[in-house]
């Protein structure tokens, strides 16, 4: 699971008013090179919740290259590459997502989060 995906996800537990962001913890993280696409990263900038991205990146130990505030549109290439790295090149292979309100945990195995709830939930 990449941090771009984490930034798009929320908890769907019953009765939750604000399920975003899901708390992230990891036991295995892999870094894989992914081709850089400046246009794509630029377009994603105003879709991201920047605070949640920085928090998740810090959780994985890769938050140092990110500025506190979201970059302006048309940021320089070096900055876009930092964002690209954090969004697409850092994979949570094993870990957990946790609902911020109920504490319900969703496992991440082999890079895939399992968001399925039981009938009662």
């Amino acid at each position, binding site marked *: 699971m*990449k941090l771009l995906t984490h930034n*798009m996800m*929320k908890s769907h537990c019953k009765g939750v008013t604000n399920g975003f962001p899901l708390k992230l913890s990891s036991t295995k993280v892999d870094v894989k090179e992914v081709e850089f696409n400046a246009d794509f990263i630029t377009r994603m900038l105003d879709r991201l919740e920047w605070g949640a991205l920085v928090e998740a990146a810090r959780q994985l130990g890769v938050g140092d290259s990110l500025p506190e505030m979201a970059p302006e549109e048309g940021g320089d290439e070096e900055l876009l590459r930092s964002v690209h790295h954090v969004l*697409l090149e850092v994979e949570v292979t094993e870990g957990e997502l946790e609902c911020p309100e109920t504490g319900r945990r969703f496992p991440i195995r082999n890079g*895939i*989060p399992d968001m399925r709830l039981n009938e009662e939930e």
Partner: protein
Amino acid sequence: KQWYQRRVRVLSIGCAMLGAGHVTALEVDPDAIEDLAGNLEEYEMDNVDVVQCDVTAPSSFKEGVFDTAIMNPPFGTKNNEGIDMVFLDRALELCRGSVYSFHKSSTREFITRRMESRGYHVTVLAEMKFSIPQMYKMHRKKEVLVDVDFIRVARER
């Protein structure tokens, strides 16, 4: 598994190969996920994320986070009527742009009316025949050809 026995999960791979910035595959069935993960590895896809979730349940994704969706939803059977509509509704909720999907041609009028009444525009991009193998005892033939539309559901601009 023999290649012809392994159900092929290629929609996400096709998207990635055609230059999508990033692809997220939503799938609930563990066997399908295993097939998909195997295919992703075989094709060396590095920009496809898989999330195991039930799209008929409340969404694990925020609204409008995706640009577009491409899907091949279940068509709905005797015990599962209307599931194709649920998939379509969910895709439109999660996407800010058009949704591309396969539906039985016999549902074309119904889908078009339903979508247009909500302000969307439906285009049939292709008409095809899908071969549905015998899966249940109640199916009398070994294989059935079903008329299928490939449609785009777009927001009016």
